[in-house]
């Protein structure tokens, strides 16, 4: 077999298998063992079955074996032959993990799972099978939902007592002809022994050969009529087939039909290699039955080879479930598209700027056209951005498992609630928010929620609640982690900070005190849980969020709970900013940080000996950040009262930035400075202005962080 042909399809299979595993896990976590929904059980079964099918086609035997065991066990559960106990759920969750590891070995070259572990897990699964079941199930493979499963030979042992169902295919028309039935029949072969009994044909005027109007088959199978119908409905319109009583005589259609009995079909039918269900047009690609070895049962290997080609070429489409109307696109293509749209925005801005100089009366058509262009460009930009947007459920999906496992380990009772899963976030941000969010949730479980005993003593319900919430606010996405746990102790934090020699004062606001836990000195103290090896402390969390252009804040009430709010921009690529001038240079300040701008009166500027200046704004004294000093530029304006103060808020603190003047407000495309240069302190990126020049985007949080913390004087 040509392995080269198949490896192209490995990636698609891995992606789909990952989806199956994810949906299986979330269903297992959701399902209530005592009141299991039949549809959920079926869905879990189908997920395992789909993975098995694909892995069999690609020859991943270890995965096939494990999923086969899982499937067999779960089949019993969904048929009601076995109760769904928590231990079954646990084994399945463990199996899911092992499958993930097996896939990781194949996909990323990770360390292989030890065969001993796999064998042990299979044993655990088999234990459930050995328990007496209600009715022995024949080895016949259960009905699968996937439309193009590679067929495994079920070798339906001829259990004589199997009930017989009769299927009638017809009437035939342009969309569904008699030949198509063969493919379907072959697919049914794995469910039981099937043979054609009759073909009802009608003599066509002017043609010698009668055209079939109906084909009847008999199948001896353990599968119920309903399940058979379900399987068939994936490949045929239910209008084209029906089940009848074996004893029903063939109906006589109107125009003098000729009923042709086809008794000979049986032995021929045995010779056909079972084929995957395929479209009619692929029909002729298949092996001429005459060339197949005689009547011997075709061994698994040969079958799977014949079948591999087809199933590889059509990686299980229905496995995507309801997403039949979506296509897989590589992230690079999407990124390239977004870059191009970004370039278009810049060019459009340049045109708009250049056209300002034109007399709009004289060039009316041009102005109108440019205005239209601007609208179109904005719309295109929004559309392109939305391609990369994915719902937060992608992020929230993994947390039930995390919380469940951690809570069990720590012997706490915790319920996880999620809100706003449909809120969309840029794919790049989704990937980057997962680690920090995981850390925050683990913190909540570990240090936030108290033990059941402590909670009851405090008059709280024994079961703690952690809520994950996502929503839009302003031009941002807010992601919050709330818990009804112990809350943060302000005094304790201040004490610890003093112990570590950090400069703190009692007059710091609550926000500022809570923000202390983000400082590197704090994070590692009494960590019991294993966050080791990931290098993620609270300081890294804040840094990661800042690097995404976001912000994180903590609110808490002692004894009641804590809320951690993460604010993220909607997209990484475009930014709303205000351009400010310092000397001859223009800088962009992201709008999300700006609170207000004003020109201060001379009397509002006060200096503190040895520490710099502050500005009085409505009773508050804000530290003055003189940009031309920090950036080492020659300004046009030296006195703050002749320039402009831009009040920005970052890290829970307000700072007054002193600039020469405000230039304007723009939507800018963020260009990376670091791809060809390196990280610059105080600069988060660059952009290209309408005149083609580069303007640097200020990293407000960085700049503000440079201002000494000792300020915080009350008015």
């Amino acid at each position, binding site marked *: 077999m040509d392995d080269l042909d198949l490896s192209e399809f490995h990636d698609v299979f891995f992606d789909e298998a990952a989806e199956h595993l994810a949906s299986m896990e979330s269903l297992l976590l959701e399902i209530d063992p005592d009141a299991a929904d039949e549809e959920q059980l079926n869905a879990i079964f189908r997920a395992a079955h789909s993975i098995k099918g694909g892995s069999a086609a690609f020859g991943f035997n270890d995965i096939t074996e494990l999923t086969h065991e899982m499937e067999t066990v779960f089949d019993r559960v969904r048929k009601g032959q076995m109760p769904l106990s928590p231990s079954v759920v646990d084994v399945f969750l463990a199996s899911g993990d092992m499958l993930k590891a097996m896939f990781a070995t194949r996909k990323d070259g990770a360390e292989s799972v030890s065969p001993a572990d796999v064998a042990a897990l299979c044993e655990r699964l088999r234990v459930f099978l050995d328990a007496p079941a209600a009715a022995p199930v024949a080895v016949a493979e259960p009905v699968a939902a996937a439309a193009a499963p590679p067929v495994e030979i079920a070798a339906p042992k001829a259990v004589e007592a199997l009930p017989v169902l009769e299927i009638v295919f017809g009437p035939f028309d342009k969309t569904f002809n008699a030949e198509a039935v063969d493919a379907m029949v072959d697919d049914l072969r794995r469910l039981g022994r099937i043979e054609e009994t009759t073909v009802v044909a009608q003599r066509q005027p002017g043609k010698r050969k009668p055209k079939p109007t109906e084909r009847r088959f008999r199948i001896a199978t353990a599968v119920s009529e309903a399940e058979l119908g379900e399987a068939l409905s994936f490949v045929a319109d239910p209008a084209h087939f029906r089940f009848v009583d074996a004893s029903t005589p063939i109906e006589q259609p109107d125009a003098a039909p000729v009923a042709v009995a086809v008794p000979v079909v049986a032995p021929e039918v045995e010779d056909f290699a079972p084929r995957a269900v395929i479209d009619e047009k692929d029909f002729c690609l298949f092996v001429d039955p005459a060339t197949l070895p005689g009547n011997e049962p075709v061994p698994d290997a040969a079958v799977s080879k014949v079948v591999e080609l087809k199933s590889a070429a059509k990686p299980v489409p229905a496995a995507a479930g309801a997403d039949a109307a979506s296509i897989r696109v590589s992230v690079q293509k999407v990124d390239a598209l977004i870059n191009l749209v970004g*370039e278009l925005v810049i060019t459009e801005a340049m045109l708009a700027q250049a056209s300002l100089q034109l007399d709009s009366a004289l060039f009316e058509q041009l102005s109108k056209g440019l205005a239209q262009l601007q609208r179109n460009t904005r719309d295109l930009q929004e559309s392109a951005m939305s391609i990369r947007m994915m719902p937060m459920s992608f992020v929230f999906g993994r947390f039930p498992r995390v919380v469940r496992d951690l809570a069990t380990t720590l012997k706490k009772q915790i319920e996880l609630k999620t809100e706003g899963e449909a809120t969309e976030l840029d794919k790049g941000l989704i990937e980057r928010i997962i680690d920090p969010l995981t850390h925050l949730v683990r913190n909540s479980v570990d240090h936030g929620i108290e033990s059941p005993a402590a909670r009851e003593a405090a008059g709280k319900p024994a079961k703690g609640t952690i809520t994950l919430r996502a929503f839009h606010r302003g031009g941002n996405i807010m992601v919050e982690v709330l818990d009804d746990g112990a809350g943060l102790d302000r005094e304790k934090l201040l004490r610890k900070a003093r112990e570590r020699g950090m400069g703190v004062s009692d007059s710091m606001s609550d926000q500022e005190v809570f923000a202390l836990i983000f400082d590197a000195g704090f994070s590692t103290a009494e960590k019991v849980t294993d966050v080791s090896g990931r290098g993620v402390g609270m300081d890294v969390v804040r840094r990661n969020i800042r690097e995404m252009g976001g912000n994180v804040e903590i609110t808490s009430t002692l004894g009641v709970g804590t809320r951690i709010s993460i604010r993220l921009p909607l997209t990484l690529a475009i930014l709303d900013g205000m351009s400010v001038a310092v000397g001859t240079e223009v800088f962009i300040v992201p709008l999300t940080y700006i609170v207000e701008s004003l020109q201060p009166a001379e009397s509002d500027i006060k200096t503190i000996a040895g520490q710099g200046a502050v500005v009085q704004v409505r009773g508050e004294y804000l530290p003055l950040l003189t940009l031309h000093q920090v*950036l080492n530029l020659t300004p046009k304006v030296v006195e703050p009262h002749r320039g402009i103060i831009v009040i920005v808020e970052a890290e829970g603190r307000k700072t007054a930035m002193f600039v020469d003047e405000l230039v304007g407000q723009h939507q800018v495309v963020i260009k990376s400075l*670091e791809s*060809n*240069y*390196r990280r*610059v302190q105080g*600069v988060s990126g660059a952009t290209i202005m309408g005149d083609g020049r*580069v303007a*640097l985007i200020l990293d407000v949080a960085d700049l503000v962080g440079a201002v000494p913390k000792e300020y915080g004087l009350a008015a």
Partner: protein
Amino acid sequence: MSQTQTAVTAKSAGLSASHQASEFLTFRLGQEEYGIEILKVQEIRCYEAVTAIANAPDFIKGVVNLRGIIVPIVDMRIKFNLGQASYDEFTVVIILNVASRVVGMVVDGVSDVIQLAGDQVRAAPDFSSNSFDTNYITGLGTADDRMLILIDIERLMCSPDMALFDGGTVQ
């Protein structure tokens, strides 16, 4: 790789390169003529308005917009103290593509592209120089009456003291 190892590889690479005919772009810095592998050169531009970067070393003039990409510009004349760093309509910027990054360097002028066969290149004498770490010199080429100092521009640009890239080692 340690410094010594990279030095050895560079030298041997330089020597092996000199065995085949290679094409070099030659340019002037002050009174001297230098040559760099033509394959590292992306394009040649005139010196345009540069956006300065705060607190950067003086030889890093800033960044420019190169058809949508932000590219840092280095003035070699300042860095290596060679000649007068003036900027007029004849000032040339060579845009390089090294280590998957795009960098521009200001030079006094670009001469031409020449092919040097192995026998036209000699190993550089190992004199220690303050202004120019001779580790980056892969050889001395002769063409007509000119002596060309051949540089491994990728190594030079990626070195830590150029302060251009984070963790500046050749990838």
